């Protein structure tokens, strides 16, 4: 065979380095898949099988009993209505919190990047500072404020808290996105006679789809996964799923029902998981955008 003349596409060779990269990636993937695997198989096993200790093995007699128990009849303390109560509580908290915090962040970002409000930079700086102070610092003062105003331990209270704490990130997110839009668009809309709201709704918001998706992902996962605000501000009636999950797992008496615990955990993780699978590409962007917040 004659030596190949260099032409066309350069041939790709599997080098040792490349093999190493693949080996690392496969190992890393397995490492992170392992807990999920254990959770899924355990939740599908009856307790007798779990007692054998083969935690990695596939279930011999697959059953969804643990899932239905976790959903509708697992006990959180004295009540035995399963985690479904928490699920619907979380949904009720999630929807208004996500919508309101995104609207507030979008308007804030729009005002800060286009209207050059007096003192805008100072305001933005203060807002960002707020984002970097640990939440725990705010808990007690907020509890006092809310109980004084009489909304403590209510749905309003927990939604308000999520909106307030979502504001710095949402504002930053939208401000940075809007800073990347050409300012001339805004100028053209000003000359065309648009005011603050008409420019926002007719020109800017229709261009915001990508950042709205990112913001939604960020807020949905963030608020769904919240534990401490829910525990502190939501009140007994509105405890979100994360808090109920904790109650189920920690209030077991006698033998620990690993399969129910696992199923309940999977159920609690379902919403972020679905969001992830539906919008993988956007999800990564959302995480990257959220990375500024640590």
């Amino acid at each position: 065979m004659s030596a190949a003349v260099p032409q066309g596409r350069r041939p790709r060779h599997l080098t040792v380095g490349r093999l190493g990269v693949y080996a690392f990636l496969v190992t890393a993937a397995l490492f992170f898949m392992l807990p999920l695997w254990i959770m899924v198989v355990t939740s599908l096993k009856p307790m007798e099988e779990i007692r054998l200790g083969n935690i990695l093995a596939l279930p011999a007699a697959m059953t969804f009993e643990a899932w239905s128990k976790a959903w509708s009849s697992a006990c959180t303390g004295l009540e035995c209505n399963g985690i479904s109560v928490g699920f619907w509580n979380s949904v009720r908290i999630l929807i208004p919190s996500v919508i309101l915090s995104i609207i507030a962040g979008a308007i804030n970002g729009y005002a800060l990047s286009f209207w050059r409000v007096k003192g805008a930079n100072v305001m933005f700086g203060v807002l960002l500072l707020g984002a970097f102070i640990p939440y725990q610092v705010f808990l007690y003062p907020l509890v006092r404020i809310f109980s004084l105003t009489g909304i403590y331990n209510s749905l309003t209270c927990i939604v308000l808290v999520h909106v307030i704490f979502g504001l710095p990130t949402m504002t930053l997110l939208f401000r940075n996105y809007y800073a990347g839009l050409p300012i001339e668009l805004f100028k053209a809309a000003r000359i065309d006679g648009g005011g603050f709201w008409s420019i926002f709704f007719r020109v800017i918001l229709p261009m915001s789809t990508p950042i709205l998706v990112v913001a939604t992902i960020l807020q949905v996962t963030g608020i769904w996964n919240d534990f401490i605000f829910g525990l502190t501000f939501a009140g007994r009636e509105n405890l979100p799923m994360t808090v109920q999950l904790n109650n189920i797992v920690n209030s077991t008496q006698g033998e620990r029902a690993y399969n129910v615990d696992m199923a309940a955990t999977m159920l609690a993780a379902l919403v972020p998981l679905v969001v992830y699978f539906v919008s993988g590409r956007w999800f990564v962007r959302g995480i990257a955008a959220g990375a500024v917040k640590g």
Partner: protein
Amino acid sequence: MSTVSVRDVTVAFEAVQVFDGLSLDIQEGEFIVLLGPSGCGKSTLLNAIAGLLDVAEGQIWINGKNVTWEEPKDRGIAMVFQSYALYPRMNVRENMSFGLKMAKTPRPEIEKRVAKAAELLQITPLLDRRPDQLSGGQRQRVAIGRALVRDAAVFLFDEPLSNLDAKLRNELRVEIKRLHARLGKTTMVYVTHDQIEAMTLADRIVVMKEQKIQQIGTPDEIYHRPANLFVAGFVGSPQMNFVKGRLENTGEGLSFLAGDRRVPLSGYPFMTAPSAGQDVVLGVRPEHLEISSTGIWPGFTVDIVEPMGADTVIWCSDGAGSVQVRTSGSRRATPGESVTLHVDPTQVSLFAADSGERL
């Protein structure tokens, strides 16, 4: 009557003053071009006229009305931007009618005006397309159309052709000029750094540098009688040749002397009384130099020849410096060839060496 009048305007960003007491009067129906290098403040001035920038001091009058504190929409202006600034989520028709909708114009009137503007700019077939389905030239046409439907007395253009390729730029330039002629009494203020656009479009050119107006004049005045060294060097391509020298009294009156080279200045229209012995800079455009055996400037050698089709630019060097000579396109020269140059004494410009001002 002047439609646009900028009176003693000062613009400041934070603490930095951009203009300090700048004034400019623009007549009705006039095509004014603000010309200058980037950062000279021409766009800032346009934005101040548009009301997109607050002025710190001074007044802006449009159509006999003091609009210094008015919103942009109430100033009777329309504006076209370099980046087109079309609303990306609206189609062409919606883009063009947005301003009228904001002004609560009745629907039939909107349709009539949009149809008329679209026809004028030949974009009727594009009306239902979105901006991302248009080419650059089409987008800029739509942007001009969006300005047209506003029926404004004053059109402001902020480097509208700078994002287009050379061929389209020429086409649209001609169209803008035609549009101005057709609209009749519409005043246009046009910002550019492109001197060809300035020369071809303007009734009057305002040359700016470092936030100051250097010269206001017709393209002819700007080109043939530049007010200072900056204007002389900025306008014209290839650039005007500058030769440093002195004014001397010789037998036939005042002359320009640089070494043993001489240009008689008996016919030169001095603006200020010259004095012999003064250090000056002589400016002469490449087309006013000629390679001729009977010339008055001997001792040059051909350095580089640049054939440009319609004409040829020949760089001639005398060892110390070089000058560019514009000759006919058919003229050929060989580098290294010795030549003698002739200067047309009626076409030169003289500048004071110290201040750079025209003499």
